[in-house]
């Protein structure tokens, strides 16, 4: 019989009420559902700082003196922000995956004489497969997850770049001029004066972006990752007794209500944390919020 947490779950057909529910909610399949919450949180935990890094790089590039670099930064911001997310998630990931395999192919299979593109097919030599087809399922899943992180980071990095670009320009010009008058170099003025002060201007935009990122996590399933929405849909759907020990009617509403609760709680906690952060950043700044704090304290 199926492995279950409680011993009385061996014959679900005779169970009722609470016992039935406790067995139902602890099937190994449900464990996948609970585990997928962790996947989503892990994705957010890795993607948010990565996207911020991409954004910072993009903003720095866009305001660089070097024309080519500035052009590159601005093109990144404009192009990625302009492409619909769903198109990006459907095509870019396949392209990225194929690009990596194409590079691997040229690195390890230089003696391969058959073409890579054959009609509709994309075929690289077996050693250039990433990960190798003999690799464990775990390796395949991690690779898929890494592709998802990169894709999310590129998309959200472009928005973050635009926000940071604006925030850098919002820092009063007089601050930089003062720094330069004190003899700081360009670089010193950037890191010591501009960057510490720009966050307070960037945070409203960035907190918005964080909320959008949380809501965008269901796009994970487009990338072949089984996220919470996939499992909620799969397990909520009506089940016939022929194929499961726990038949039930269409319960998707309950599963999606659970997700609703999860997302609402998560965004609420985020809001509280971001408000706290904003208070701290505004402290001592020459902005309306910073001024209000100063007056309240005197």
């Amino acid at each position, binding site marked *: 019989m*199926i*492995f279950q947490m409680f011993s009385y779950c061996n014959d679900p057909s005779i169970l009722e009420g609470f016992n039935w529910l406790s067995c139902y909610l602890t*099937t*190994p*399949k449900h*464990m*996948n559902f609970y585990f997928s919450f962790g996947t989503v949180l892990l994705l957010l935990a890795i993607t948010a700082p990565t996207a911020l890094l991409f954004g910072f790089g993009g903003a720095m590039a866009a305001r660089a003196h070097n024309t080519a670099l500035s052009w590159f930064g601005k093109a990144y911001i404009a192009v990625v922000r302009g492409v619909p997310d769903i198109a990006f998630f*459907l095509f870019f990931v*396949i392209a990225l*995956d*194929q690009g990596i*395999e194409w590079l691997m192919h040229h690195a*390890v*299979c*230089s*003696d391969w004489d058959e073409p890579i593109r*054959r*009609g*509709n*097919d*994309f*075929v*690289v*030599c*077996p*050693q250039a*497969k990433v990960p*190798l*087809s*003999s690799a464990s*399922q775990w390796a*395949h899943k991690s690779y898929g997850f890494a592709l998802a992180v990169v894709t999310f980071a590129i998309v959200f990095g472009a928005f973050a770049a635009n926000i940071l670009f604006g925030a850098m320009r919002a820092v009063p010009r007089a601050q930089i001029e003062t720094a330069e008058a004190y003899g700081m170099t360009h670089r010193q003025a950037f890191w010591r004066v501009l960057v510490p002060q720009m966050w307070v201007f960037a945070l409203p935009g960035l907190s918005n972006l964080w909320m959008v990122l949380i809501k965008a996590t269901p796009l994970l*399933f*487009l990338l*072949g990752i*089984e996220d919470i929405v996939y499992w909620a*849909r*799969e397990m909520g*759907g*009506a089940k*016939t*007794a*022929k*194929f*499961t*020990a*726990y*038949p039930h*009617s*269409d319960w*998707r509403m309950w599963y999606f209500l659970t997700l609703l609760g999860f997302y609402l709680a998560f965004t609420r906690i985020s809001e509280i944390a971001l408000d706290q952060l904003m208070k701290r950043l505004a402290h001592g700044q020459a902005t309306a919020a910073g001024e209000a704090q100063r007056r309240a304290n005197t």
Partner: protein
Amino acid sequence: MKKLILGTAALALTASMGMTDTVRMGTEGAYPPYNFINDKGEVDGFERELGDELCKRAKLTCEWVTNEWDSIIPNLVSGNYDTIIAGMSITDERDEVIDFTQNYTQPDPSGYLALSGADVDLKGGIIAAQTGTIQAAFIASSGATLVEFSTPDDTIAAVRNGEADAVMADDAYLRPIADENDDVALLDQQELIGGGVGMGLRESDGDLKAKFDAAIASMKDDGTLNALLAKWEIGPGF
């Protein structure tokens, strides 16, 4: 010289990996009895048993992967897995993009499921089907209004909540649902469409196709395929 060493290393690798190469089997996992996710969270169903037996006969190591139906063909041709074994009927349209093995089910009649006692106009009503299936193509050309859904489960829900008058799908999928629920029933009308279900492979994968073809033929010959078809109650045998 460097190239030569790399080449030799690659050759040695190919030789040693020839034995352990894994064939990744792509399926949907949402279309019982063909394929579904069981209580253990694993792929189960007719195609799971069939696929495992075929791999055994062809002496291949196989691994199961699930993928959404919508993108199941693009992900095959780009090499994310090596076969599609997902209740996919053999059609000319699909055959232009991928290759099929010989069919491992007879053309399964497609049935209609509607609310019990409902009088459905099959030529002018609203009929639900899963996107990109032979049933969707059939309804589109029949004169009825087609509403498409991305999963089989959604098509059933559409009938229950009144969005569609009936749902059209493989008889083997609809029958257990009709048997166990009083609120829905199968209509008498059936349609014979499609050329049976086969395994989909990349057009450039001739070797693998030959292996699976041989394995399917041997299962047809010794009757094990018929036993499997009967066990999962999928259409007539061979």
